[in-house]
């Protein structure tokens, strides 16, 4: 709104009038979501933060006395450092696997058209219609000792593989569960891809894999960044699948928070770990925005 003000006679140009009446309208429109966020998100997070400074007793009781004891023990204990590192690494692994499995599908979807595209898109989204719990049990049926894979391997005389109650199971299960999100995020970020640009590269002497490496991958980076952020966040915070497919032997932040809150009843510790998860998310977001700025 930087219209040059008319020099003479007519004062009070319209833009100014619009602005003075427009500002409260914006506030009014933002108010509902601001309130929901304040009561539904900020307040609980603040509560969580406060709880992380309470004192916990061996009995499981929580005393409303402020202390740094929980934070100090978490930051000092190498178990938690390993837990955090482990969570981040497993989630990064899952994100990478999801990206590798989803990228070709997303690329194919991006290039298809008409009814075929619609059918494929529905197929991609349809797993989201079933809850992650049901899909995780599906993976149990496939990966367990007497599951589909090991029965098939047994039939051809190969010793059973340990596919469950370890990281392998968690990675396989979460990869499949997160794929729809990754594919949709990739598709949303494929806007800069242009078949003419790829053709230009090939007329300039680039064989197909070089077109992919020098043109397709860089142009789809926004989608890759968005999908990776989304899947990393979902992987770090996922709980059901690591719980069921990890069988208590894969230690991740989300499962540890559950155990501390429900089993051990150490709420201050659970709260501390939850805040750490939020910090990790914050870090991921910073990396994402940096990455985006570097790409564009």
């Amino acid at each position: 709104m930087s219209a040059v003000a008319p020099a003479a006679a007519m004062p009070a140009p319209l833009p100014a009038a619009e602005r003075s009446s427009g500002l409260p309208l914006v506030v009014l429109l933002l108010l509902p979501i601001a309130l929901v966020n304040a009561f539904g998100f900020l307040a609980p997070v603040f509560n969580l933060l406060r709880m992380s400074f309470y004192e916990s007793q061996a009995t499981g009781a929580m005393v409303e006395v402020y202390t740094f004891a929980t934070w100090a023990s978490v930051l000092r204990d190498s178990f938690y450092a390993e837990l955090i590192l482990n969570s981040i690494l497993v989630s990064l692994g899952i994100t990478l696997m999801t990206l590798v499995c989803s990228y070709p599908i997303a690329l194919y979807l991006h290039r298809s058209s008409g009814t075929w595209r619609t059918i494929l898109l529905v197929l991609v989204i349809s797993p989201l219609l079933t809850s992650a719990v049901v899909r995780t049990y599906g993976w149990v049926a496939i990966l367990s000792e007497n599951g589909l894979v090991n029965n098939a391997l047994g039939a051809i005389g190969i010793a059973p593989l340990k596919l469950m109650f370890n990281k392998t199971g968690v990675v396989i299960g979460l990869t499949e569960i997160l794929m729809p999100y990754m594919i949709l995020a990739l598709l949303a970020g494929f806007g800069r891809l242009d078949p003419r640009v790829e053709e230009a590269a090939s007329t300039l002497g680039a064989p197909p894999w070089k077109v992919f490496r020098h043109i397709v991958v860089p142009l789809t980076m926004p989608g890759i960044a968005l999908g990776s952020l989304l899947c990393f966040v979902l992987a770090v915070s996922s709980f059901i699948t690591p719980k069921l497919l990890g069988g208590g032997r894969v230690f991740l932040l989300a499962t540890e928070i559950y155990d501390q809150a429900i089993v051990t009843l150490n709420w201050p510790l659970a709260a501390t770990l939850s805040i750490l998860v939020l910090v990790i998310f914050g870090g991921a977001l910073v990396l994402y925005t940096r990455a985006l700025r570097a790409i564009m």
Partner: protein
Amino acid sequence: MTSRTDAPEGFLSIRSLTKRYGDFVAVDNLDLEVPKGELVAFLGPSGCGKTTSLRMIAGLVPATSGRIVVGGGDLTEVATHRRDMGLVFQSYALFPHMSVARNVAFGLEMRKVDKGEIAKRVKEAIALVHLTGKEEHRPAQLSGGQQQRVALARALVIRPSILLLDEPLSNLDAKLRDEMRNEIRDIQKRLGITAIFVTHDQVEALTMCDKVVVMNQGRLEQLGTPVELYETPKTAFVASFVGRSNRLTAVARNGAAEFAGQRIAAPAGLEGPVQVMIRPHRLGLSPASPAAADPARQQVTGTVARAIFAGDILQYDVDVGGQIVSVELATRGGESVIEPGRPVTLSWRPQDIFIYGAAA
């Protein structure tokens, strides 16, 4: 069909090139010989197969049948990236994530040319298209004309065997188009590069190119120099597509075409309905006095339906037996406009009228 089988083998040789999509024939049995260093236009309306032909030459679309031979080597089955052709797209198709210099360097990097040589050739190519100083800009920071220059530099820097231009000027505004037209022609001549120029704009085809291939519905209608196409169009389509023409219908009988009871000489062998084409500015117009006729000119009479004075030309629409004929006369000053309703005589030199069978 006007395939020049008698012509000497060209640098680019297209033989019976055909592209079918199911039942639809996009390019039908195209034969063409392009000598080294010539700029040849593929001219035609949209959907005539000119772009498909170009894309087959580049290897972006596989040919259904036929051969594409360059400098004696058959490229029909060769992959695009090994064809060594420079293609300039209508939409520029620059790499948006690379600087101007990187865009131009791309083809050389793919050829593993050494670094120093790349830097030198990129610099030359950018200077050639007058973009020195813009090396580090991203395509999005450039105007349409500048982007098209980058695309041109990028295609030329690899020293392609053939330069292919797919409607390169269509996205530019009129002033820039004229400028780029001259520039492309200058560069093409200076480098002596063989080039194919696809366009639907007859002005571009006539003014820039050594030869023009007029295409219609997948077939080659006529191949010739701009002058040949304009002065001796072989089909009604060429006569109407290249330059402007009055398109009239008549009935041919015994070596004469007849409309509204007036007869003019027609080529032997034509019988029944025919199309008569004549260009508006090749017609003469005089107040009705057939007696004063020049025996070297053919003529018909009609009535002025409309007279428009447009400064440099005086345009008349003349009603000849129910058909409207446009006449354009260059103004010289001092002429008086003939009022609508007055009888007039139209005349022309016999070589300026074209008569085709109605089926053509």
